[in-house]
């Protein structure tokens, strides 16, 4: 029964996948089509070939992992070497299409006006549209959603619009614009007019004409020739004028170069880079000290209510971080926040700008993160302390070791020998602790002189987010991804060092 259901779900998904794959190829996305084809073939092999039986279990998890972990990482690397950003969101093909579809209204001359007023009405009984141009010519037609030629004739009195049809509003016409734009209306004189505005038709001419045997475009108004420039991602003329929109191109390592050389980027980037390390190190250090201290204080057999203390101490860790961060943001508010109010009550009447002053903002981030993070270290240290067998302490006592000596030569070495992986893990976590910064200060206050949205408390990951998704200064996907690549390398190095130190590789080879 279960088997039948599983197999039918699988087959439905499989055929849906095949359909999707053909759609990708039809849409011209060759690479993605090939990837999905590989996935489909692989799936088929694994579920039909009995020799691949173990992979039937492995495969589903491995597939989502590849699609939403491995491919995004590869894709991020690719984007990091492009200039994908505001003004460069489209491919060259798309930009070519936009430009070659751009039209203009030729200047009017004596016998041919450049634009024509029109009215449009709908005959709801036949679903057809009635068109009348400047009261002179008219016709009835049906919207097919395809390109068509419609001939207009001299209006016979009271025939078209006048026949008690209310003209469509400009808003209604606007909604029909895409279908209307497909139609060539042929006037009795033989000239062709097309949809131009919601109240105007015009004899439109395509502005940019493709040149033969090249990718260049010729501007029919100015007669300038624009060729695609694959360094800057623009169609550029000889005298360095470019057309918008631009397209995305591979820019090599120039994102990285800019981060390290560009005047407005370099200073803030280096500052953020240093602060990210400082922030992660200090966060780990402070929360470890407090967590260990508390674990040592609570870990005494003679202490009543030990279990209660433990639960109360990990409450900060149990609350979703985004909630705690926002609560602290309110409490640290300079003008209304409870913390400044309590300080005033205690006699400190100078209001501290907790979140707006470069130094205090950093202090606030660290303090709040200490509040969030110490219970983790408390839990870990408690676990380590509990794993020390009672007999070790008894033996020490027999040998006449005092309490301080026991602590110094048994408890502390015990903690330090087991804590390292947790400290490294915590470092890696805080290195990318986006919520811990962004929800408290938003990365602010801004760094003076920065040309991007860089802030004094920004860490690399929040800077990445702001570059990519906070539109105030444009969206820089390319540069954001190149920073993500750097984070990736740093985390990899830290992780590998950690694995090597803790001997996990050896264990697995066993």
């Amino acid at each position, binding site marked *: 029964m279960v088997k039948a259901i599983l197999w039918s779900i699988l087959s439905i998904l499989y055929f849906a996948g095949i359909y999707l794959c053909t759609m990708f190829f039809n849409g011209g996305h060759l690479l993605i089509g090939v990837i999905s084809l590989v996935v489909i073939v692989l799936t088929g092999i694994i579920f039909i070939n009995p020799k691949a039986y173990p992979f039937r279990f492995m495969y589903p998890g491995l597939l989502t992992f590849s699609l939403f972990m491995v491919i995004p990482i590869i894709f991020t690397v690719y984007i990091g070497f492009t200039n994908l950003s505001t003004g460069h969101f489209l491919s060259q093909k798309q930009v070519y299409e936009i430009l070659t579809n751009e039209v203009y209204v030729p200047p009017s001359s004596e016998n041919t006006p450049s634009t024509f007023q029109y009215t449009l009405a709908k005959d709801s009984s036949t679903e057809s549209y009635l068109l009348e141009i400047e009261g002179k010519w008219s016709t009835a037609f049906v919207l097919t959603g395809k390109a068509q030629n419609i001939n207009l004739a001299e209006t016979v009195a009271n025939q078209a619009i006048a026949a008690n049809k209310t003209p469509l509003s400009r808003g209604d016409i606007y909604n029909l614009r895409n279908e209307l734009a497909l139609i060539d209306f042929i006037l009795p004189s033989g000239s062709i007019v097309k949809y131009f505005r919601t109240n105007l038709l015009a004899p439109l001419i395509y502005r940019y004409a493709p040149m033969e045997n090249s990718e260049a475009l010729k501007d029919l108004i100015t007669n300038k020739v624009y060729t695609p420039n694959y360094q800057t991602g623009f169609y550029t003329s000889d005298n360095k004028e470019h057309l918008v929109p631009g397209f995305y191109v591979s820019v090599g390592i120039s994102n990285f170069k800019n981060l390290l050389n560009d005047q407005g980027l370099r200073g803030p980037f280096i500052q953020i880079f240093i602060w990210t390390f400082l922030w992660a190190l200090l966060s780990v250090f402070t929360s470890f000290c407090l967590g260990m201290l508390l674990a040592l204080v609570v870990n005494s057999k003679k202490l009543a209510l030990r279990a209660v203390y433990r639960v109360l101490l990990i409450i900060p860790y149990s609350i979703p971080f*985004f909630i705690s961060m926002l609560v602290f943001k309110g409490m640290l508010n300079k003008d*209304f926040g409870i913390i400044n109010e309590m300080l005033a009550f205690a006699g400190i009447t100078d209001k501290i700008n907790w979140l707006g002053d470069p130094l205090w903002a950093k202090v606030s981030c660290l303090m709040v993160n200490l509040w969030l993070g110490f219970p983790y270290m408390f839990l870990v240290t408690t676990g380590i302390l509990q794993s020390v067998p009672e007999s070790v302490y008894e033996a020490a006592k027999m040998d006449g070791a005092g309490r301080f000596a026991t602590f110094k030569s048994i408890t502390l070495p015990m903690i330090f020998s087991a804590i390292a992986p947790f400290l490294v893990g915590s470092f890696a976590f805080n290195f990318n602790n986006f919520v811990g910064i962004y929800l408290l200060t938003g990365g602010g206050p801004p760094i003076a002189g920065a040309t991007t949205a860089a802030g004094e408390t920004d860490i690399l990951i929040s800077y990445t987010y702001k570059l990519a*998704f906070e539109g105030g200064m444009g969206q820089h*996907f390319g540069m954001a991804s190149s920073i*993500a690549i750097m984070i990736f390398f740093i985390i990899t190095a830290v992780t590998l060092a950690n694995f090597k130190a803790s001997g996990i590789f050896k264990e697995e080879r066993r």
Partner: protein
Amino acid sequence: MEKKVFDKKQIEILARHLFLIALLLIILFPVLYIISISLNPTGGIGSPLIPSHFSLDHWKYILGIPYKDSSTGEIIVSSFPIMRWLFNSIKVSLITAFLILLLSTTSAYALSRFSFQGRKTSLLVLMVTQMFPSIMGMVAFYLMLNFIGDYLPFLGTDTHWGLILVYLGGTPFNIWLIKGYFDTIPKSIEESAIMDGCSRFQAFYRIVLPLSAPILAVVGLLAFIGTFSDFILPSILLKSQDKFTLAVGIQIFISEAFSSRWGQFAAACIVGAIPISALFLSIHKYIISGLTSGGIKG
């Protein structure tokens, strides 16, 4: 002599109690403060610590129940679907947790029981990649979902299923945890079942799965908590107000007007925090032992 030592120990214990109580007062202050604010009818950001009288107005606000404003007397109904956000969060987290369990148990089983080519490599890859938080690929996720949305609108940006899809990349850590547990279940149980005519798959879901209920519960709850608490992915991927998860909705709700919505925000925080906090505290003992295989969230 005997008595003196006894006294010294008592003093030490007393000192420990005093130290812990003093520290707990500081540590739990924000929690107590936010509870007090949620019950304070004025509830501005600068309200006194202990309200002069209590009211449930803020609670009515976030639950969408109309109430009469105490100072102006007008009837107020919240224009923010806060309960909807909570529901969205729970929905996304439940489905994510379920699918992650489904995907990672089968993979973990294969890694634990079968020997096949590429097994060791798979294990290494899983171990290394589980260290990377998915947010590093945020630009890629956004562009990928934008692309998928052109073909499958229900999986694009601004959809819950699209968001869930992205979370499914986070299976490695869970595979790792579950595999460790499967390794402790003796193979002989399944082998005898297979001898008796059970298929491999039946042995898996009739014998191994029920035996691993504890670890499955912990992994499921951790996935639920992690998804519920995530801020960055929903904030990138979700655009329309009625699709927000609590994390995104509440952030926008409070950031727009910090001082005037403080009371309502406090109530919303408690509603969002209690289920997660309770879940976490109920499994924290398992987490201590699970922690030894890698960092969970800290």
